């Protein structure tokens, strides 16, 4: 293979995928696609459905599951006589490959010189696909039908002809039919961008060369992936973490991973993970695998997104577990599972390559949905506030404050804009002090806010990480847990399931408050530089109590500015106190100080 052609072809194929992303982001009607890029596009191998290239503007959560969905559609098409030019398949069936029913995937064949040359896919988040709750976040769903209309792999276009009856049937069952019709049309149009791009490439080189380059790109990515795997010390790394509950039954659930690293191969074994839940805390098998790649990509950002990178990996996902959702289990809480899955991979890899891995991020997508009838605008509103939180520290830096989840890039809504659109008022929006896990490098802080209702507002919460905190690594400690609180009729209360509640009725003056977790710490907090502790104290990132008990720092108040105290950390006294703490640890035989130990995940 000519290396120049290969390098240029790789760029050209990635460019086509990028152009498909941008085309949909530009043309989609719903803001969730046009504003938060909740979509993805790719080019896939015609023989085996492996990813050749995927657009770089789409969301991480679709990283590999597009390939699996496309592979399933390929098999289905073969069973029914194969692809024909002008076919466009459509599906949102999570068990068949997808994420949740809101994500619709379209798959189209590209024929060149009469032969099947490649497959193209477009995934987009539709604002509503029916179900019991507008937008689809139903914390008490017990089966998929409460989350929306299920679309098995069917042909939206058959040989270039729109299957109008199917479209009518589908849009009759969604809340925003005009918008959804427009988005589906925009997605179908994207394929002409991909088709044109591939035709241009074939005209410039020839079909055989382009095809050979696709094969070679996949092989090269495999080589590249293996070179990263070889940097991980061989061994078996086990890690376990837990969920609060499934939204229905108040019992913790377990995510357990044994990661085996051999010469140039990774095996992810999830044996020991909890069985499927009654509530919506379930994940399809393919999205579970996809999430493993998201975690790897966060550790090795240079790894290309291509079927070859997925080859040197193997998965053991127990049948009937929360990682292998089967009909008719609900999957609306899938982002919580994705988040924890990424966490346990960090936890396992931290035992092997702590220098490259972050401690656990805040770990909950924790969507707060506020809905109702606006008393002045006289229209129905749905406000979605996804959880922000702190990132875990790394060897090189303290964790980021107020990040988005690792599988998403979506932003938090503007406070001022929210108050224009919804009958609510924010009472504060603050950095949450003392929420980052202590460590030589401190975990990033979470945040807290309180929303007061100005008329009748229905609030649902679907989150996690109250009972089991984001963990630290390499001797770093856990972050503060999530906390959700309601105030109704003058009484404040914590939801019985702590992180999940469906349809709390708020009236004028009632409120909901959320405090998100920080990220875990990295390294022994007793090793943190005293200048940094002093700064953390004076910036209010940590409390004097934490400085004393977790960091072994002796802080002396030297001034007052307004209502704030100014501290200096005394070097000599701190050294003495740390010495004493270290001696006490050795006496206990414990590697980690006692506080929050109950909340730490179990490491074996």
């Amino acid at each position, binding site marked *: 293979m000519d*290396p*120049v052609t290969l*390098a*240029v072809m790789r760029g050209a194929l990635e460019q086509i995928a990028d152009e498909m992303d941008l085309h949909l982001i530009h*043309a989609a009607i719903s803001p969730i696609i046009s504003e938060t890029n909740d979509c993805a596009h790719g080019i896939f191998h015609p023989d085996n459905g492996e990813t050749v290239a995927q657009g770089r503007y789409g969301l*991480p959560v679709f990283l590999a599951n597009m390939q699996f969905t496309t592979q399933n559609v390929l098999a289905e098409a073969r069973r029914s006589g194969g692809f024909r030019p002008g076919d466009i398949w459509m599906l949102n069936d999570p068990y068949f490959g997808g994420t949740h029913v809101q994500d619709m995937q379209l798959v189209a064949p590209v024929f060149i010189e009469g032969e099947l040359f490649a497959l193209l896919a477009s995934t987009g988040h539709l604002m509503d696909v029916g179900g019991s709750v507008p937008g689809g976040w139903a914390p008490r769903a017990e089966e998929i039908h409460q989350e929306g209309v299920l679309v098995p792999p069917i042909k939206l276009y058959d040989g270039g002809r729109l299957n109008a009856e199917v479209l009518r049937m589908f849009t009759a069952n969604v809340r925003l039919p005009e918008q959804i019709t427009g988005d589906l049309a925009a997605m179908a149009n994207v394929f002409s961008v991909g088709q044109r791009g591939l035709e241009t490439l074939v005209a410039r080189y020839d079909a055989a060369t382009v095809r050979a380059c696709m094969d070679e790109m996949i092989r*090269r990515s495999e080589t590249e992936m293996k070179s990263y795997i070889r940097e991980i010390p061989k061994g078996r790394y086990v890690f376990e973490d837990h969920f609060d509950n499934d939204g229905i039954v108040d019992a913790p659930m377990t995510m357990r991973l044994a990661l085996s690293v051999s010469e140039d191969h990774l095996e992810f074994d999830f044996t020991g993970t909890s069985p499927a839940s009654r509530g919506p805390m379930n994940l399809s098998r393919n999205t579970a695998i996809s999430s493993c790649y998201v975690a790897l990509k966060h550790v090795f950002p240079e790894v290309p997104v291509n079927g070859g990178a997925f080859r040197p990996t193997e998965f053991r996902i127990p049948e009937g577990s929360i990682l292998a959702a089967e009909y008719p289990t609900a999957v609306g809480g899938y982002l919580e599972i994705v988040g924890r899955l990424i966490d346990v991979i960090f936890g396992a890899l931290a035992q092997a390559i702590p220098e490259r891995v972050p401690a656990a991020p805040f770990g909950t997508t924790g969507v707060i949905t506020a809905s109702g009838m606006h008393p002045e605008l006289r229209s129905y509103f749905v406000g979605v506030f996804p959880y922000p939180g702190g990132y875990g520290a790394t060897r090189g830096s303290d964790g980021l404050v107020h990040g988005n989840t690792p599988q998403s890039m979506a932003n938090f809504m503007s406070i001022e804009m929210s108050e224009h659109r919804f009958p609510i008022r924010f009472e504060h*929006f603050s950095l949450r002090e003392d929420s980052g896990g202590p460590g030589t490098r401190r975990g990033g802080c979470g945040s807290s806010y309180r929303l007061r209702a100005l008329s009748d507002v229905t609030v649902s919460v679907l989150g996690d990480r109250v009972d089991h905190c984001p963990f630290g690594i390499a001797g770093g400690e856990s972050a503060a847990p999530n906390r959700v609180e309601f105030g109704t009729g003058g009484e404040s209360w914590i939801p019985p399931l702590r992180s999940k509640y469906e349809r709390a009725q708020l009236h004028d003056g009632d409120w909901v408050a959320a405090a998100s977790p920080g990220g875990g710490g990295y390294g022994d907090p007793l090793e943190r530089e005293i200048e940094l502790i002093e700064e953390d104290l004076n910036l209010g990132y940590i409390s004097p109590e934490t400085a004393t008990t977790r960091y072994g720092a002796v802080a002396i108040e030297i001034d007052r500015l307004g209502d704030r105290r100014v501290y200096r950390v005394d070097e000599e006294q701190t050294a003495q106190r740390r010495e004493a703490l270290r001696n006490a640890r050795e006496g206990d035989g414990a590697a980690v100080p006692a506080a929050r130990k109950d909340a730490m995940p179990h490491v074996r």
Partner: protein
Amino acid sequence: MNLPLRLARSRATGRLSARSQQAWNERARRMSGLVGIDVGGTFTDLYHAPGDGTPPRILKVPSTPDDPSRGLIEALDAAGIAPDGVAAILHGTTIATNAVIERRGAHMALVTTRGFRDVLELGRRDRPQMYGLSGNHRPLVPRDRRWEVTERLSHKGEVLVPLDDAEVAALAEVLKRQNVEAVAVSLLHAYANPAHEQRVRAILLEACPDWHVVTSTQVVREYYEFERTSTAVVQGYLQPLIGRYARRLGERLGEWGFGADILVMQSNGGLVPVAQLADRAASIVRSGPAAGVMAAARIASAAGFRHVITGDMGGTSFDVAVVLDGSPDVAETTNLDFRMPLRVPMIDVHTIGAGGGSIAHVNRGGMLEVGPRSAGSMPGPVAYGQGGTEPTVTDANIVLARINPDRPIGRGHGLQLELARDSMRRIGDRLGLGVEQTAEAVLAVINQRMAGRMRLLSIERGLDPRDFALVAFGGAGPLHGAALIREVGVQTMLVPPHPGVLCAMGCVIAELRHDLSQTLEKGLEAMDAGDVAAILAAQAAEGRERILTGGIAVDGIAVEHTADMAYRGQIHTVRVPIEPGWPADRIGAAFREVYGAKYGRPLDVPGRIVNLRTSVAGLRAPATGTAADIGEAWHPVEAARRPVHFGGWVETRVYDRAALGPGAAFDGPAIVEHVDTTTVIEPGMRARVDAWNNLLVECA
């Protein structure tokens, strides 16, 4: 809102300006020279239009980062310009950008509504890059200098909690103890009612008149608390520093003997007089690139090109912008750094890490990649002999003889070709390619990345890349432009007469400009045409006042009004040209037309006005030259011939740009050597010089 007062003030200053107009006319008769100076990180570029009919002169001298005004004077001296022959000095500068990047701005405080001091630090929930969770963020104002005052407004501007004057006065005493130099005041919903912000400002200034106090609504009167706060903070952070710079610049130019107009380029592509510079400190960030785009837009428009993509390739980056019908695209919000949005209209310049210094390497899969890592100015390309060992794009151009190693731009001595060849050979061996083949591959890969960005920019606007011309400039732009137009399918590349100093030239031809905005956030059904007209009139009056009080005479004032509009429920807005006095249905029709043109078809959903905007331009006499008469095309005489590699070594004609005038025409392959860069014309392409002395390169 106190509209009548503002209008009255504006009328008063109108009279003042009539007098200054006279004085200017007088002066203009004596002096007509214009000097554009763009102070960049590495070089200070000068463009001098003498105004007496003689051709413009250009110059490049090293910048003096410790005191940029010194380099500026040195450039003027080196060019041998007489101070009394110059009517105006027009200036682009990176001083604001550098102060932010290097965190050298003011020791300042931020005052917010109680409960919201962390808005600046939290941002809107994001991370620095899509993959990889490392990296951190340091806000310009740390948390211990962010303070809260008791007060709260509703989204309609009603006072829910009144401001406590005594509390603010007490806070002023605390801020004195913190030794701050500047204070930003950003209160929730202040765009709907700035009274509390103005009161806080008054109390603080009373306590300490030396402070620079910036209110958020002074800078941007729009909703989105984080973006507005961040913008006010950037303004406060830069204001003292930029004020000092403006003063020093005036003094130095005064010592040099210059007493006429000094104007500075803003990032919106318009100029601001140096006297008002401190107040517009946040608006001069990235002014150099904006000036380059303005110049490229003007030149292309005069040369008859409707839509252009401008490509400025330097040592470390490739800056691309889109110009439609002569107007550069404008971005409402630009991120200066991670979680540091600046919400002022800026010419939308997209940057990718592709420049002459971009490093080529073989990745773990055995594939060639180029950039985004750059060798920078130290060690620079391998051929510079400063210790670099990894081959760069410049080394590839040297190995292929596209750059003349004996005549390097901006360097006193020659280049070391053998070192460049050795470095290319090292990666060629791993790829199984020869030295020249490797260099060609490096160019193919970097050109593809740049071409890809150009394609995406046009596709994002729903346009076919083939509808554009490329204006190539910067030190490396004309070296790569031919490959880019071939790759993208663009018909023509335009290389302006002085591609290496285009930003300096852009300063000379720009207008004065002020942009004003205010959030309305109202459905069309609830809109009052009188209210809208009053806001637009007040904005126009304020812009006019700023221009008239700036001490710079103008030929005329142009006012444009637009509305940011969306359908109910949408977050994304489109910008719709409107006129004061239009009723709701007229505005609605204009919105549907713009939306339809951009997204295919309008929706059957109620429309909404989010922001009202007015841009006020102070027009200056055009400073561009005149078109020459082109008679017969003529074949220029080549200055030299040398073998240049285009797939193989080809004996290639080399022309001296200075010897090419309007009407000159020749075929590729050819090399044109300019004082400030090199243009490559590939085999099969044709080149000619147009009536405006632009070099046009066309695909056959």
